[in-house]
């Protein structure tokens, strides 16, 4: 009985599709029929040349993919600022796509940039893009270079046309913590965090250690929201922390916008993350830990265009210029500026180490033995699973 009804239905269904695509019926029906195989290879092969508006041989087309909005005052904006610096380089064309989820959608976005835009270098910037999406595409397109933010590259397992970079932003969090510790009057700092993963814990701990290095009475209360972009929960967490007497708020979520705005509205201080949120809180914004991806991206592109080998695993902090501080806000005292600048100089020179023993977690257990000093390259830092003494909060 299905068979008898098939014709009208198929006609109706197909027609909707055809119309939707504004009368491009011929292409649809021809590609749907049995000649799909040859057509497939023909079109795919010819697509880059035919579609890309004839790039001069020296023009490099670079694609940037973001998981959120590129003006989010946060993670994605930091990358988009890097992309802007790349776009300003001569002979480079930048194509950007935002709000691409960590699903097959990002694979298709990468392929679309390669097939339709002629991109040969891609920066898929979200941490979750790496496995399996970038790894799949890198195998499919060995001539294209994929550079990923997160530092996940493993040369024993991963394709040669993949690289991964990351920054030691806990250095900037430590400096932010110093400013917060010298600004707070209640000695209560608040931290709105997404997930209890090593990278986030490292930032919470560095922030707290920085604050307590100048003001041992300080404690940091942490609220985990459970995911990277939960504006409502972030606002609720900010409010509840402020109600508990916190007078400096900071965060590690995709966009600190809500937290910083809420702090300003309630008349307390805040420090930023990812990018500068100073414009959102002209009174209470103290400083913030920012990425400086412009430096990383232009460096990569210079190396690639000069046909020099580029580092597959690239990491850096203040010294390499991968992270930076937001300019100090009006509420920062001269003493705080001086202490913060000193710490920054020490971190840049490598004379100051954030994580060194003896260090206890907030349950009193020793996590770094006396005499042990964990410099930034120490792999143990990548596995951090504790909150240091002075942090109020519990890991699930």
């Amino acid at each position, binding site marked *: *009985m*299905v068979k008898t009804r098939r014709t*009208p*239905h198929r*006609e*109706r*269904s197909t*027609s*909707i*599709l055809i*119309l*939707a*695509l*504004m009368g*491009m019926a011929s*292409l*649809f029906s021809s*590609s749907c029929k049995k000649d*799909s*195989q040859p*057509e*497939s290879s023909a*079109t*795919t092969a010819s*697509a880059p040349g035919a*579609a890309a508006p004839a790039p001069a041989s020296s023009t490099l087309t670079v*694609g940037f993919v973001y998981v959120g*909005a590129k003006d989010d005052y946060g993670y994605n904006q930091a990358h988009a600022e890097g992309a802007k610096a790349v776009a300003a380089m001569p002979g480079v064309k930048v194509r*950007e*796509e*935002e*709000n*691409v*989820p*960590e*699903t*097959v*959608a990002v*694979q*298709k*976005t990468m*392929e*679309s*940039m390669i*097939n*339709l*835009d002629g991109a040969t270098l891609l920066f898929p910037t979200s*941490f*979750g893009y790496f*496995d*399996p999406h970038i790894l799949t595409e890198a195998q499919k397109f060995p001539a294209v270079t994929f550079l990923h933010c*997160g530092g996940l590259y493993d040369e024993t397992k991963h394709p040669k046309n993949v690289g991964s970079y990351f920054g030691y932003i806990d250095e900037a969090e430590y400096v932010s913590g110093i400013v917060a510790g010298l600004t707070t009057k209640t000695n209560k700092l608040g931290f709105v965090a997404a*997930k209890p*993963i*090593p*990278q986030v814990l490292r930032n919470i701990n560095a922030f707290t250690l920085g604050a307590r290095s100048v003001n041992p009475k300080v404690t940091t209360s942490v609220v985990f929201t*459970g*995911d990277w972009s939960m504006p409502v929960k972030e606002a609720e967490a900010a409010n509840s922390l402020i109600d508990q007497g916190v007078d400096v708020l900071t965060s590690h979520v995709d966009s600190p916008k809500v937290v910083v705005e809420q702090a300003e509205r309630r008349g307390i201080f805040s420090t930023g993350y990812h990018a500068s949120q100073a414009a959102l809180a002209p009174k209470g914004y103290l400083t913030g830990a920012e990425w400086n991806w412009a430096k990383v991206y232009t460096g990569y592109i210079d190396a690639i265009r000069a046909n020099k080998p580029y580092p597959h695993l690239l990491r850096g902090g203040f010294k390499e210029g991968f992270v930076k501080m937001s300019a100090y806000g009006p509420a920062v005292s001269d003493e705080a500026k001086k202490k913060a600048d000193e710490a920054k100089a020490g971190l840049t020179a490598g004379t100051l180490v954030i994580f060194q023993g003896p260090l206890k977690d907030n349950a009193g257990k020793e996590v770094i033995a006396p005499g042990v000093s964990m410099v930034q390259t120490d792999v143990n830092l990548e*596995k951090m699973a504790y909150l240091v003494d002075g942090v109020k909060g519990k890991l*699930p």
Partner: protein
Amino acid sequence: MNARVYETLSIRVGALALSFVLFGGFVALAGADPLDVYYQMYRGSIGTWFSFQNALLRAAPLMLTALCTAIPARLGLTIIGGEGALVLGGLAAAGTGLALTGLPGSVVVVAMATIGFAAGALWVGAAGALRAYRGVNETISSLLLSYIAIALMTYLVEGPMRDPTSLNHPTTRAIPPDAMLGNIPGFDVHWGLAFGIVACVLAHILMMRSVFGFGGAIVGGNLRAALLCGLPVRRMMVIACALAGGAAGLAGMAEVAAIHGRASDSLVAGYGYTGILVSFMAQHEPLAIVPVAVLFGGIGASNGLIQRADHLPDATVNVLQGILFVVILASETLYGRFSLFRPASKKDEPLSSAAPPAPPGPPVPPVENLPEAAA
């Protein structure tokens, strides 16, 4: 064929054309060249074989999540919890794949599909049971159950099921490679698309061509009448909801088995919510879901090119989806209003794109329960 088919076709064509004209006006206001936007949409959605496959690939999960709303809709139930069923289906499938590591790939795939279906069925079936036996509003309960499902997935993926080596992006361990669903031969599209199409066809047969479906239509049309007929209304509600949830669970299984290879928060990608939109636009007709899902897939596929070539923000396609949704639903009031279609007449294009806006008419489909779709 007959006048009815032409009427349907013309109204659909007119609605789509009007939507695209309105959208063109919108992008012109946003400072882009509408013709170039149309061209980029064409190039991004069907202009090349790659683009068309991209559209199909994006349509695959939407077909299954749309069924999650469409099947209960026949019984008058508005289920919007497809996202949770998809997430749980994916999680259960990953768990099954991990538990059965070592068995032949095909066995594992079948087991993953079955358990993924069952997990989704249990979840939405629970919303149906709450409605049938306790009178709890199924729209609210399915949405709230969906949040619980996501929280449960997060807890398990970050806790008991976590792969200890997944440091900064918690996931489960990977399922065995031979249990991964490959691509349909000759296509760069995974088997999830075939699942979707087959499920839509089966749902069509069940809901439009079977005794169960006919009974369902009675339940949806007049609950009292159905009860007076002696139909097992409660059981039918639970079954319909379970099948609906199973379809969404299968979408989650395909995401895990064809793409991710493991379960993580990447499963929460909004397919469940977009599926609601697809179902409403297809008027909850399972066969119509297929082309509507492809339309949405095509819009999604062309989204990137609009951003990259015309420098419009990502939300542009949401505006197009919104326009399509409103115009198509409004166009439903036009049926029977054109004398042209009453006798078996000739075709031609009777409805110009400048058709007057739908006059207020009584038979508007119930949309007031639809929440803001997160697309």
